[in-house]
């Protein structure tokens, strides 16, 4: 084992190999090769320096294999693995075609290009292990695969026998995304789900750590989680207003949203306004205006803008009358209280009696009133206008109402369902339908909010539908006793309040068995009872898709580039072997191998969609691209064209600005005194917010952002990425100065939940009073629980948002001090 790893690693630090190669193939060899090409070079005239690297780039490579980057960034990229002697030597990306927009290459970002160092990472799990120390301590003992399978199956049988199937939980995990066989998300569509569904089922969850609030709240408005126009349609807009939407740091692929934004905007010359507490890389000097906003106050800005739109007669009244419910008294449902409509709320004629003037909004958002008025006039007078929100504004303690509020700007101005406009939700995408590995139906219908699993371990039977968002039952009957954690780091690193999670998981009389399946020794892997080493995408075959890719989407043939490293096995093999021990192997495999399943999937999809290539041509081509036959995806286009013929899935069939269902929830759910649910998308202040009393102790707001060095926590252990984009806490000079903090200083960021230490980025690119750090850094705590990696989740809270019971991981208060 060790030997094999050493051999691999010596390729990583490779200089001898490469230099030998150079000397063998050499400059002269290259000169000869080049002479045959039609290039303007006359290499023979040159001296013969033995330069580094690239002369040998195409030498010695035995094969080039298409693979993919299958992480949770929202993009999805093909990778071309150049393999020599069974080792990946360098990583290329889509190199096909002429690369003109519309027929463009899908180019991987810095992370995909660093895949080699993730595959051959010193943190790779090499063989199955079982825990020997205290849970979370990270002490393990090597075991055989047979013993590992037996341990998992025996414990699974025992837990099911003692507590029932609802005690078994599939934790959220997005480390392997977009595959047909291997995908870890949604867990309900993973192979683990198929296995469990053959064994009586498991406790479901709903929502995601990415979108808990927006995906729960916006269906109350639109009937479905807010769809958006494709970013390629920015080619048709005049004004683009981005609320916390930052594709340059979230959907970074060169065939993804940021590329579409750049190309489409170059065609329309649309003005771009970026509303964000950080001056983002999407802005990056290309913005027409950056409007810094206090985190968690987007709904107040929207209300201030709405006040101007309404009082200056810039709302699209015919649209509001025909397509919407609850804008004013004409469409207010009869059950609603008098003056319960949106217009009354804005004008101060509703229950709170406060007019949401620009001055009112200014004091909350930190945006000067004259800027709010100017922005409102711009939005109100520019047709079409595209309002797009990202998922930052919703990942807050009041994120449900913030996300519904941003939709209001598109609705008030009648920009919904038209080209150049948008719904106010996040951008949409064309996609190629493709049926994946069938994962069967879960016999259990009980579900918890995705964020509430630590509570379900600790106090499961106390959790109810009305208090904790339990679905499918009035209350949970049993706590979680068994966790499957496949390709996920939300067991520790990405869940809020790591120190509380450590306490909950640390008591192994609560959750009795944790099975972690992953590639690397992550913070979550350290909490495993049984740790199973998974293959990376480079070591197996799969069909990969699910990119947000504007109006040109694609399927990737992710072939096996190298043999499995160490004793790693595929998720398919692991689940098959555990299925055998559970007595359901034949039902699980249906007699097929992984490759046979892929052939089968391609064939059943070709029956429905004959334009798809067969497996062998797909394999040779590596990527299959298709254009949106409609030009651009326009969200709610059918509804706009024919609202009666294509009603929304809301109870009224219309856009519900006032939601009676939310009014009912607000009246029946048991909420904390400072939790607000409202039928209208109002602004409400929150716990841990900018105006919370806690701010006396912890004066700075802290938000997280997606950081280019990682995709959430994936790639977080790759040295070259860590060095190229360093983990830092952003702090404005106005806050840094009095604290004696200079750019690059080591600081401690702390609150009642915990403390982390990292370097400060003192920059005007963050609003005063606000700090920010990239989420996903690998938690690395000392014995006093102080983290030294800048892992934000030692500072976040497990208290959920009121409606979705989602993760408010951007709603934090902290203080920052220089480390002496």
């Amino acid at each position: 084992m060790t030997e094999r790893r050493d051999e691999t690693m010596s390729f990583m630090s490779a200089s001898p190999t490469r230099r030998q190669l150079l000397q063998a193939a050499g400059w002269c060899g290259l000169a000869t090769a080049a002479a045959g090409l039609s290039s303007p070079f006359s290499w023979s005239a040159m001296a013969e320096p033995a330069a580094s690297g690239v002369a040998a780039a195409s030498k010695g490579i035995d094969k080039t294999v298409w693979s993919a980057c299958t992480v949770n960034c929202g993009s999805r990229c093909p990778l071309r693995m150049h393999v020599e002697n069974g080792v990946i030597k360098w990583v290329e990306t889509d190199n096909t075609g002429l690369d003109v927009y519309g027929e463009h290459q899908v180019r991987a970002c810095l992370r995909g290009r660093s895949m080699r160092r993730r595959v051959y990472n010193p943190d790779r799990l090499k063989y199955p292990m079982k825990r020997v120390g205290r849970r979370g301590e990270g002490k393990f003992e090597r075991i055989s695969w047979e013993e590992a399978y037996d341990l998992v199956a025996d414990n699974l049988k025992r837990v099911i026998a003692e507590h029932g199937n609802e005690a078994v939980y599939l934790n959220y995990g997005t480390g392997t995304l977009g595959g047909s066989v291997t995908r870890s998300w949604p867990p309900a569509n993973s192979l683990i789900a198929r296995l469990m569904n053959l064994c009586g089922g498991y406790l479901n969850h709903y929502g995601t750590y990415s979108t808990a609030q927006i995906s729960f709240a916006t269906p109350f408005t639109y009937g479905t989680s807010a769809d958006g126009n494709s970013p390629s349609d920015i080619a048709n807009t005049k004004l683009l207003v981005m609320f916390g939407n930052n594709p340059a740091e979230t959907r970074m692929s060169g065939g993804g949203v940021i590329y579409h934004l750049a190309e489409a905007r170059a065609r329309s010359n649309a003005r771009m306004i970026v509303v964000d507490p950080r001056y983002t890389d999407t802005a990056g000097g290309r913005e027409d205006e950056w409007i810094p906003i206090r985190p968690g106050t987007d709904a107040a800005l929207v209300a201030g803008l709405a006040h101007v739109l309404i009082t200056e007669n810039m709302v699209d009244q015919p649209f509001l009358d025909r397509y919407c419910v609850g804008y004013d008294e004409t469409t207010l449902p009869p059950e609603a209280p008098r003056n319960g409509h949106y217009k009354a709320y804005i004008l101060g004629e509703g229950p709170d009696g406060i007019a949401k003037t620009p001055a009112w909004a200014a004091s909350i958002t930190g945006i000067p009133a004259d800027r709010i008025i100017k922005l409102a006039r711009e939005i109100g007078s520019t047709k079409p206008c595209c309002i797009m929100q990202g998922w930052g504004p919703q990942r807050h303690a009041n994120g449900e109402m913030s996300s519904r509020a941003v939709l209001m700007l598109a609705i008030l101005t009648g920009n919904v369902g038209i080209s150049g406009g948008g719904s106010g939700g996040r951008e949409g995408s064309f996609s190629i339908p493709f049926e994946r590995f069938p994962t069967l139906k879960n016999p259990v219908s009980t579900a918890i909010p995705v964020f509430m699993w630590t509570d379900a371990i600790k106090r499961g039977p106390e959790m109810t539908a009305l208090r904790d968002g339990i679905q499918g039952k009035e209350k949970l009957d049993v706590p979680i006793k068994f966790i499957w954690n496949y390709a996920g780091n939300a067991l520790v690193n990405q869940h809020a309040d790591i120190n509380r999670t450590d306490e909950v998981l640390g008591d192994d009389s609560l959750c009795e068995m944790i099975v972690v399946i992953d590639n690397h020794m992550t913070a979550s892997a350290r909490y495993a009872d049984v740790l199973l080493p998974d293959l990376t995408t480079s070591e197996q075959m799969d069909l990969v898709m699910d990119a947000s890719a504007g109006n040109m989407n694609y399927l990737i043939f992710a072939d096996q580039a190298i043999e499995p490293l160490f004793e790693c096995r595929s998720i398919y093999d692991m689940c098959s072997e555990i299925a055998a021990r559970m007595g359901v192997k034949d039902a699980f495999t249906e007699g097929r191998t992984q490759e046979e399943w892929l052939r089968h999937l391609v064939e059943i999809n070709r029956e429905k969609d004959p334009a798809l290539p067969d497996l062998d041509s797909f394999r040779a081509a590596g990527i299959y691209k298709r254009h949106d036959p409609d030009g651009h995806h326009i969200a709610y286009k059918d509804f706009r064209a024919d609202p009666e013929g294509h009603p929304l899935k809301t109870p009224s069939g219309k856009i519900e600005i006032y939601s009676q269902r939310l009014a009912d929830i607000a009246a029946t759910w048991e909420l904390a005194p400072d939790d607000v649910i409202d039928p209208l998308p109002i602004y409400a202040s929150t716990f841990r917010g900018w105006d919370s009393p806690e701010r006396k102790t912890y004066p700075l707001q802290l938000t997280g952002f997606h950081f280019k060095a990682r995709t959430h926590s994936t790639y977080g252990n790759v040295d070259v990425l860590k060095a190229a984009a360093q983990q830092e806490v952003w702090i404005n000079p106005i806050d840094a100065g009095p604290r004696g903090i200079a750019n690059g200083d080591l600081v401690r960021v702390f609150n009642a939940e915990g403390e982390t230490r990292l370097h400060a980025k003192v920059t005007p690119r963050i609003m005063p009073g606000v700090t920010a750090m990239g989420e996903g850094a690998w938690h690395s705590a000392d014995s006093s629980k102080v983290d030294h990696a800048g892992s934000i989740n030692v500072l976040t809270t497990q208290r959920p948002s009121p409606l979705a019971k989602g993760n408010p991981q951007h709603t934090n208060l902290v203080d920052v001090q220089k480390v002496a």
Partner: protein
Amino acid sequence: MTQQYGFFIDSSRCTGCKTCMLACKDLKDLPPEVNFRRVYEYTGGEWTQDGDAWRQDVFSYYTSIACNHCADPACTKVCPTGAMAKHENGFVIVDEEVCIGCKSCAMACPYGAPQYSEVKRHMTKCDGCYGRVAEGKKPVCVEACPLRALDFGPIEELREKHGTLAAVAPLPEDTYTHPSIVIKPNPKARPVGNHDGFLANPREV
């Protein structure tokens, strides 16, 4: 010399993603501390309080720089062994067999292009991917850029297409070495020598 090759850098498009830098690191197998290509963040602006609200004039932009294969390179002039030399088609390349690692070139180059490798114990540097170029490809950074913000070709052609700007803040004046680059400035770009802003990511370049 047949002709001079060079880079086009579209700073108006660059999002600072650093894919150029990491694609290069992967192909050339560089350690974390050696950066043949570097992405500079230039940031500035002030904040003033206005009642409960704030006003600001913040700007920020990125410029991606490797070796500029300068017409008048500073590195070659100070190299005591001749290892650092300008070759056909204008590529400035260090002969790693000859280089003794004295670091004179690193001190002379105003762009920080030549970098010492602790592993190899001599200087290393962007070689313009001359091998790829000979095969009709472009340097790996150019073909990697997700925003298509980089290009490469005969510098005269690039200048015809994109003009002759070869310096913006925080880069040095182009009169020192006559770099073979053309920059399309970011809308917020500040002229070379400007001090409205500062190099915001010194630890990353």
